[in-house]
């Protein structure tokens, strides 16, 4: 990949997001932290995958990195400018350089407007091309994501899920962004269509040198697409590092459990029962003390309840938040 090495594009520091919840009519508001102490940097041209189960805060992280949601504490710098210190017009101007692709290809497009008009929105808002060139540019974008030319005048409901996701990607690309947050962009799609969209995202990343935050619960897709992986559990990053390290020899027991419980086309011969992680995600309203994962962790010991383990380095660019962290080869076979 032809990226200038380690040129940070976007940096989130000390991010935390609280959604206080009130129980009952007069109950006291309780803190519910969707995100805590998250630091994340993304370099130009880099694809960072965020994995974790629902409720781990990965979507909240994506929205905050894009400036759509304001963190309770912490800052996000985009190209050296603090997103949440900007004025409204400046912030909207900066929005040209950052875009989002959503999970639900049926909800992310306005059902009442033609595909072309929606792709053209960004072009008009940010004056990307002169007004008379908009139709050509829309056609070019449609072609770039593999849509036929006659698609432009049709409405979203005439398209299948995979095609809609292409439209959404074309709309995001219209403003020529540097950074895209893709929140589960392929999980609503069929396997064969999913492969089309994953390939498209890989091509675009290569051709446009896009930085991407790819949020997904599908470990296979993330492993295929991403350079760097962030594993989250209950609002915190538990492991972060290069894709081959994190998936090849995960240091955190949660990453290992996640990998082992993911069904595989190549059965390992180990019984499913040995690989199943017991229990469920604890309630974020009442998180366990110390390491949040200790209630389900096979390695937990009393020390785990004492303090939240820090993210300790495991190797170059590779960190894990576990007092017993250490690279362990998982039982799933390495790709040939």
């Amino acid at each position: 990949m032809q990226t200038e090495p380690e040129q940070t594009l976007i940096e989130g520091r000390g991010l935390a997001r609280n959604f206080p919840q009130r129980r009952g009519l007069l109950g006291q508001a309780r803190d519910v932290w969707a995100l805590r102490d998250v630091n994340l940097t993304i370099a130009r041209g880099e694809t960072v995958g965020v994995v974790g189960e629902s409720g781990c805060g990965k979507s909240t992280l994506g929205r905050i990195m894009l400036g759509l949601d304001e963190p309770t504490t912490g800052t996000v710098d985009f190209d050296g400018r603090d997103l949440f210190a900007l004025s409204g017009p400046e912030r909207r101007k900066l929005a040209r350089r950052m875009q989002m692709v959503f999970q639900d290809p049926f909800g992310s497009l306005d059902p009442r407007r033609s595909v072309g008009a929606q792709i053209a929105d960004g072009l008009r808002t940010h004056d990307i091309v002169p007004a008379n060139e908009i139709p050509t540019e829309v056609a070019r974008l449609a072609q770039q994501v593999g849509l036929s030319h006659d698609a432009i005048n049709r409405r979203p409901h005439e398209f299948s899920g995979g095609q809609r996701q292409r439209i959404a990607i074309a709309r995001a690309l219209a403003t020529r962004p540097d950074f895209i947050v893709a929140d589960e962009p392929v999980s609503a799609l069929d396997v064969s269509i999913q492969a089309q969209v994953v390939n498209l995202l890989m091509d675009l990343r290569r051709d446009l040198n896009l930085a991407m935050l790819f949020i997904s619960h599908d470990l296979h897709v993330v492993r295929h697409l991403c350079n760097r992986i962030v594993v989250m559990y209950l609002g915190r990053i538990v492991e972060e590092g290069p894709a081959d390290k994190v998936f090849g020899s995960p240091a955190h027991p949660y990453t290992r459990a996640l990998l082992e419980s993911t069904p595989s086309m190549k059965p390992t011969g180990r019984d499913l029962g040995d690989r199943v992680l017991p229990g469920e995600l604890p309630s974020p309203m009442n998180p366990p003390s110390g390491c949040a994962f200790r209630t389900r962790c096979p390695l937990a010991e009393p020390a785990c309840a004492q303090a939240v383990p820090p993210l300790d380095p495991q190797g170059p660019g590779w960190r894990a938040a576990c007092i017993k962290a250490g690279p362990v080869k998982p039982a799933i076979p390495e790709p040939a």
Partner: protein
Amino acid sequence: MTGAQRRLILPASIATFIAVLVLLAPFLPLADVRAMDVPGRFSPPSAEHWLGQDEFGRDVMSRLIWGGRASLFIAIGSALAAAVIGTTLGLLGGFFRGLVEIITVRASEVILCLPPLLLALLVVTILGAGTWPLILALTLLYTPNYARVVYAATLQVRSLDYVTAQTAMGTHPMQILVRTVLPNILPPLLVQMSLVVASAMVIESGLSFLGLGVVPPTPSWGLMIRAARGAMEQQWLLLLWPSLALAGTILTFNLLCDRLQIALDPRGITGSGALWLRRGHDGPPKSAAPAPKIAKSDALLQVEDMSISLAKGSKDIELVRNVSFTVMPGETRAIVGESGSGKTLSALALTGLLPDVLSVSGGRALLRTRADETVDLTRLDEAALRALRGGELSMVFQDASAALNPVLRLGEQLGEVIKAHNDMDDGAVAERVVALLRQVGMPDPEQRVRAYPHELSGGQRQRAMIAVAVANDPRLLIADEPTTALDPTIQAQILKLFQTLKEATADMGLIFVTHDLAVVAEIADQVTVMYAGQVVEEGPVAEVFARPRHPYTAALIASVPEGGAERLVAIPGTVPVPAEMPKGCRFAPRCAHAIDACRRDIPDIERPAPGRRTRCIRWKEVT
């Protein structure tokens, strides 16, 4: 022109007719509305006065048209003014929330505290009777209605992804409101509009009737009704005309708004009609279980050439065509395919739960019951199916939160299922419920009995639904994407639960419908691959995955991002829609190996090896 647009013609032309009539009133050769002709008072319709003459001998038709001018102007004028103001307030309040909401929506709601007629009376009393004060009064009256409706609709729309996408794009909030939010809240706005116009006409009539609206001798429909009431015994027709005009206009307007709303819906969704108008489950005369004779086999379920069709107008569209598979006792058969492959429909057909518009149009599905009888599931009527459901076969759905009743406690739902097939006293039922919940791995079963579905996590709800499904030890369990909505660790738990259940009940057959090949590899013994409504390949899971004998299966396996391939193999194009199925092999348009012969005829099932089937004429060369 679509059907929805055609249906607009009638109300639109009546509305246009009314509008033209009242607008052109000054130019029509109408009698003077004030010209009295006392000798001719109360005369019935005649050639000169088509609708007769009123209590002063004035021409009724002329007064009706001129009166409509006043009434409609007031009603539509105030409805539009209130719509503009109310929509603006509702949009702003719903989109920005917070302080803006208080000064827009909440402030306008103060008006709702006052009785509507009293408010109108107040305004009219202060400003004096007449057209403009009346419009002002009605506008004031109806603004909060619009504001509330629009506010609620805006709240729904603002959190949708396409609005967020506009925000992310840096579009100005006002532009988002006008361009994206407003068009998408139009449907409730139109309904509100039709209600308000109708109600404004009634109130205008009422106020004019009370002498507070239009001032006589200017005619209005309300005034005409008021005057005619006193003369009801002399000439009842005088009451009929304005009443007819009022009712007819209101009806036309309601119809127009309803149809406009349908025509503006981009998806063209039209109502499917009342429930009793649709075809019933036990509608077509199905002979009560004709006990078909088949070659005695050990199979638990034998589906043979089953087809499912959508009855649409005169021609049927076949959604599933000639599907065959068998399930042996204790066997797990996975049905795998993409959306539109017909896998879920095939499963639903077995339980008689197909949507009303679909029906099994061919083939049969033979189930061997506990009593060793063979029944054809496709020919049973609703009552016979009900007897089989739960006890002989049962189903687990994808979305447990939608499949469980939200207002019943878990114990009640489970107890209901048990009692449907067993005669037990309450104590025994309660014991069985707890035992069931324990069997499906529910934590704290004694406490969870009293829980409502929303109090459970996603994984627990799925466990609860599995408990409902296995409550009566079914011989055949059909699971439709039961783990698709779950997280990886929870999915693994549920898959493990299915394995445990199978080990516990050795004879139970399991049909596992899924799109996830990896899940198939984990759980199933046999796999049936479906594409575009047909079975394309079948065989033992390990063999099929190791050596697929159909190009579609091979491509599907290659498109899973597992393994180290630099690039995924994507299948180009999309699944064909049922109405436009390719003539020959349905996969041919997307197949890399298709030749002319593939496009000619639907390929027959071939058997590459014992227990294997494929629907490909080139399997020897290409796989």
